[in-house]
């Protein structure tokens, strides 16, 4: 009681100052945290096999892109594998066909292709909401899957194998795993920064408002469809970037990337890590990719899908805020 009275006695201007100071300190803490994370990522290849780390970063970017849509716009896409695969196939096709094409141009081509695909998907899917949105994206992605099965440039069941990694800017040979690792890290940091900026911009605030209450956003005069479409396009572009980078790393683009299992996996990564948290998809992707690669060598290798399904069910029933959401709550409860 007494503390409340003393707060009321402090002049408003001082209170605003204190609040601003507190926020500034929080921002500084966050920046330090990201810097530490980046430092860790820079040193990681000393301890861990770079190809595994690259796989992790690609899937983390994919999950972050997906989370932009589900976590901040409230749109559940069940067809994100299409963008991931589209980026991969186009990049693979460009790098294999035009020898001497520099790596970054190959990745750019794949990203542009999936951005365009995202625009088409988005224009169709935002005409319906909720569950229909999920079904439409799933059906469209399945159509893309069949296109990749039959198209002349995709190599059918075999996919594109032995895609050359090329030279970055035509200079640096990407055959070196360590060099490629830092390129992939740069790609991830770029994608993550785009998402971070999008979320914290005025546009991101409107997106959240639409997620919370669409009719109200409409009545406030926002063009809801345009906002949703832009979120969809950014998300599909970054998902394509992730797929394109993955193709360069593994020198392979295959139908596995386009299958609806992949769309399910990216949902699981986001859900497990924490929907609507910035770091959740990164954590979720780390857990799922690590789990998959450690299971695939063991006796439980054939049970991977079953185990993923069990995690799915447990997440939905008991753990809807995900790992990062849970940690955030823990920190809030104990350090405030």
């Amino acid at each position, binding site marked *: 009681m007494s503390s409340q009275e003393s707060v009321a006695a402090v002049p408003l201007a001082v209170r605003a100052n204190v609040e601003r100071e507190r926020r500034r300190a929080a921002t500084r803490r966050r920046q330090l945290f990201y810097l530490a994370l980046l430092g860790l990522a820079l040193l990681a290849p000393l301890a861990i096999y770079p190809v595994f780390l690259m796989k992790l970063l690609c899937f983390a970017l994919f999950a972050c892109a997906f989370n932009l849509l589900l976590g901040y716009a409230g749109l559940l896409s069940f067809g994100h594998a299409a963008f991931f695969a589209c980026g991969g196939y186009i990049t693979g096709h460009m790098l294999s066909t035009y020898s001497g094409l520099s790596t970054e141009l190959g990745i750019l081509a794949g990203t542009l292709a999936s951005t365009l695909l995202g625009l088409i998907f988005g224009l169709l899917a935002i005409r319906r909401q909720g569950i229909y949105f999920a079904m439409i994206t799933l059906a469209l992605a399945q159509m893309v899957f069949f296109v990749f099965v039959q198209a002349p440039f995709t190599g059918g069941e075999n996919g594109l194998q032995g895609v050359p990694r090329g030279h970055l800017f035509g200079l640096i040979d990407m055959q070196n795993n360590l060099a490629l690792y830092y390129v992939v890290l740069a790609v991830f940091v770029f994608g993550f920064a785009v998402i971070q900026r999008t979320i914290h911009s005025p546009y991101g605030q409107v997106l959240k408002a639409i997620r919370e209450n669409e009719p109200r956003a409409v009545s406030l005069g926002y063009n809801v469809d345009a906002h949703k479409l832009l979120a969809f396009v950014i998300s599909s572009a970054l998902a394509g970037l992730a797929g394109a980078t993955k193709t360069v790393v593994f020198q392979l683009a295959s139908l596995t990337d386009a299958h609806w299992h992949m769309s*399910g996996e990216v949902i699981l990564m986001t859900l497990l890590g924490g929907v609507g948290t910035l770091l959740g998809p990164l954590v979720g992707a780390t857990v799922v990719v690590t789990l998959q690669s450690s299971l695939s060598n063991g006796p439980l290798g054939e049970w991977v899908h079953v185990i993923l*399904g069990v995690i799915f069910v447990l997440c939905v029933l008991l753990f*809807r805020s995900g790992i990062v959401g849970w940690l955030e709550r823990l920190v809030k409860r104990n350090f405030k």
Partner: protein
Amino acid sequence: MTLVFGVPLSVLLGQLLLGLINGSFYALLSLGLAIIFGLLRIINFAHGAQYMLGAFAAFLGLNYLGVNYWAALLLSPLLIGLLGMAIERGLLRRIAGEDHLYGLLLTFGLALIVEGSFVKLFGVSGSSYPMPEALKGGYNLGFMFLPTYRAWVIVAALLVCFATWYMIERTRLGSYLRAGTENPKLMQAFGINVPLLVTLTYGYGVALAAFAGVLAAPIYAVTPGMGANLLIVVFAVVVIGGMGSIMGAIITGLAMGLIEGLTKVFYPEAANTVIFVIMVLVLLVRPAGLFGKEA
């Protein structure tokens, strides 16, 4: 030989028959999805897995317990329907108040578990189910050969579809269901046991999927993946028809099967994708779906 647009009549009719059979399965499955969606407001992503379970229950029943086709046609939907009710009571009920998307994700997880386990236990290639003696052979209609079993599938699926339609639209139990779809709280206030109604509805939708699975067993191979890809097509059918009407689901299912059959004759490359293309067209022209009511 009679030619229609450069295609022999018998080939055309044969593909239309196949299309009608696929359409019967689309109708049965989208009907189940629509009923479940009506009351529970969730999309049952495990529908494909439950269709597969229906087929496997018939297959395992025949090989280990000697249950014949006709008994399986009754017992398998009953068994899988009961399983569905247990899923509703044990799992779906816990998330009833949450965002409807969680229902989709939960049933998706269940589908992964069931299909993954069956792949491990029975392999991907699957097994064949013998055709019942009474339905072997066929009729020569002069212009084409009509296999008895295929005719039976269409008749049985249509009978079950229309019986379901009659039950929902014309009986007292159906009126409860329709009222529950409109306003479950008011129904509860009138003394109707809504939670029981929800459980029965989910069980019935699942049983429809299992029934389709048993019908499919002698035609298609019984494989763990038989439901998953079919389900995505059924989702497209549901988007085309809209889930507002029971009859709409049946008609759309049959029509899409026929269109797919025609595409196989005239432009086989697009046979896999034609339903998705129609979905895109419907979304452009009439976003709520052909029979949909919501704006």
